[in-house]
């Protein structure tokens, strides 16, 4: 009897509790790599912060570059005291806010039409919208020069060297991708929801504003963050199309005014970059909760 009882148990392999041990090891590896990535990605901002707190003398001194020995706010005072830096900041903010607004107005309505109002060629058009996103902006700025020249010749409106020109150009980068995000998001909303709204007496516009936009809020926030980041960080177009100090946006302004010939004002460059990186960070921090919270739960069977 004892033999039989023993024979019944050895079917089990490995030590008791091996699942939790496997899991523990998996967690250790995850934390190890996550820490590695965090260090890797936080290194540049950390270096920016360190350098922005140093005096020019300390930056060029031959000592450990990863520590501040004589912290000073002189770079901040100098930069924020300059009128031009505030102009760059204002230009960047205006451009980004306008671009985000224009982008969301166009892409949400376009995505709604492409995702829901089945019309002839809507699927092809949706793919076409995405394809335009795949064309790199480095290929586009020369044709854009030609177009600006054409506009000037025919209407007399000068588009070169104005910050507001960027408001017209950036949506060519943001609208296709934002539209594509929104098409995907709208497509995930059950068809019955708009049919219910249709029966309840909602027009297409009311279905969009009262049902789709609230339900797709996480998607809208994702698209907003995306277009804000793109227009805030865009470097090539403002570099190519704006030259006067008053018309520059932040990324270009920092580079063109703080690098004089071969003299790099590293302290102020790092301060400017750090201050420039702040607004997107703050926006992320505020919208992240909305972004993560799924709002469609409970709409249908769920």
């Amino acid at each position: 009897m004892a033999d039989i009882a023993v024979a019944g148990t050895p079917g089990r392999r490995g030590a008791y509790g091996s699942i939790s041990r496997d899991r523990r090891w998996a967690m250790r590896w995850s934390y190890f790599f996550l820490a590695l990535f965090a260090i890797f990605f936080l290194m540049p901002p950390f270096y920016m912060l360190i350098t922005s707190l140093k005096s020019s003398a300390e930056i060029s001194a031959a000592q450990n570059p990863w520590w501040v020995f004589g912290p000073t706010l002189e770079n901040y005072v100098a930069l924020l005291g300059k009128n031009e830096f505030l102009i760059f900041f204002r230009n960047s903010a205006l451009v980004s806010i306008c671009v985000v607004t224009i982008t969301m107005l166009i892409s949400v309505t376009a995505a709604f039409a492409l995702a829901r109002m089945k019309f002839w060629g809507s699927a092809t058009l949706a793919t076409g919208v995405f394809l335009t996103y795949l064309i790199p902006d480095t290929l586009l700025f020369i044709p854009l020069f030609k177009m600006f020249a054409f506009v000037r010749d025919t209407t007399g409106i000068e588009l070169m060297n104005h910050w507001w020109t960027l408001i017209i150009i950036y949506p060519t980068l943001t609208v296709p991708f934002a539209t594509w995000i929104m098409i995907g998001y709208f497509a995930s909303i059950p068809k019955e929801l708009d049919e219910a709204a249709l029966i309840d007496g909602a027009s297409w516009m009311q279905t969009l504003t009262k049902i789709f936009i609230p339900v797709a809020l996480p998607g809208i926030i994702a698209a907003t963050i995306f277009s804000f980041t793109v227009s805030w960080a865009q470097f090539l177009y403002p570099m190519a199309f704006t030259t006067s100090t008053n018309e520059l946006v932040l990324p270009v302004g920092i580079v063109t005014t703080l690098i004089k010939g071969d003299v790099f004002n590293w302290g102020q460059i790092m301060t400017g970059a750090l201050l420039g990186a702040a607004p997107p960070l703050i926006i992320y921090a505020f919208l992240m909760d909305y972004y993560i919270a799924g709002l469609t739960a409970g709409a249908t069977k769920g």
Partner: protein
Amino acid sequence: MAQVTLRKVIKKYDEVLAVRGVDLDIADKEFIVLVGPSGCGKSTTLRMIAGLEEISGGDIVIGGDVVNDVPPKDRDIAMVFQNYALYPHMNVYENMSFGLKLKKTPRDEIDRRVKQAAQILDITELLDRKPKQLSGGQRQRVAMGRAIVRDPKVFLFDEPLSNLDAKLRVQMRTEIKKVHQKVRTTTVYVTHDQVEAMTLADRVVVMNAGLIEQVGSPNDLYHSPTTKFVAGFIGSPAMNFIPCHLEQAAGALRLRLTDSLSMPVPASRTARYTAFVGRPNLMLGLRPEHIMETRPHIEPDQHDFNMTIEVVEPMGMETLVYFTVNGAEICGRVNPNAGAAAGQSMKLRADLSNMHLIDDTTGKVL
């Protein structure tokens, strides 16, 4: 409150005919159930009444007006969807009042109607909850509430109970019936479940392959099906179909099932069936409850025969027995105490007073 009439309604998707000419008159306050297998066109028909699908031909009349080109919101209908389709960002109150708000109904009127509907459905305490905080049955109630507050001419239900578990489904079925008895609005209800159809409907519409097979009260369909499809679709376990011949001997008709098994046709049916003597492809249709164990007292038109039972399924209040006649698997319902056992011979009784004779070529009940 309104009548609904469908006249030769057709739906064509590209070249495929989903609905092939449906004629139906639905009376005011009537509860109509469209039932059929998936792909039979029942949902499409409902969606055409709702205005969610354009019709490719024919007319739909609601309350005396042809509504072919009228958008859904102007048809004065309300619809309950299979997956409820509640607005996830609104609470129950807002969900129910959305339609009225769009119609610019006064605020106190909205409030009165929502509270009244909530009371009918017993969801008053849920009014400020979001859909994701509700159970399946509660969501279903809210979806019904959203329909009731609109006080529409017609209620449309598209398989509203399919997403619920079996127990809740039976409960909500009763609930829907109660609500209809209170509210008395013309209702069109689509389901693939024949039990739901039988229990809820004033009249059942059985659809198959885009056409109406038969319209009638649940009892009509059960006892007097006009086609083999309806005979087989309504009732569970399904009606038995046994290939047979009709023979005439000495002025009496006999139903021959196999070389060794034949039974006299009930006298009341003789005149009706005489014309089909010798006709090929005939089938005897007999429901499982008309095949029972033998009993001491025998009624007219009942006949005993011996069969080897192949499978026995005890159901508690009855036992289902399965055997084969002429290549067809037959199901009978016997008393659990009748001693049915698989592999053993058993004396069974067929009650031919409830038989159906079916022409398998045309699919018609003769």
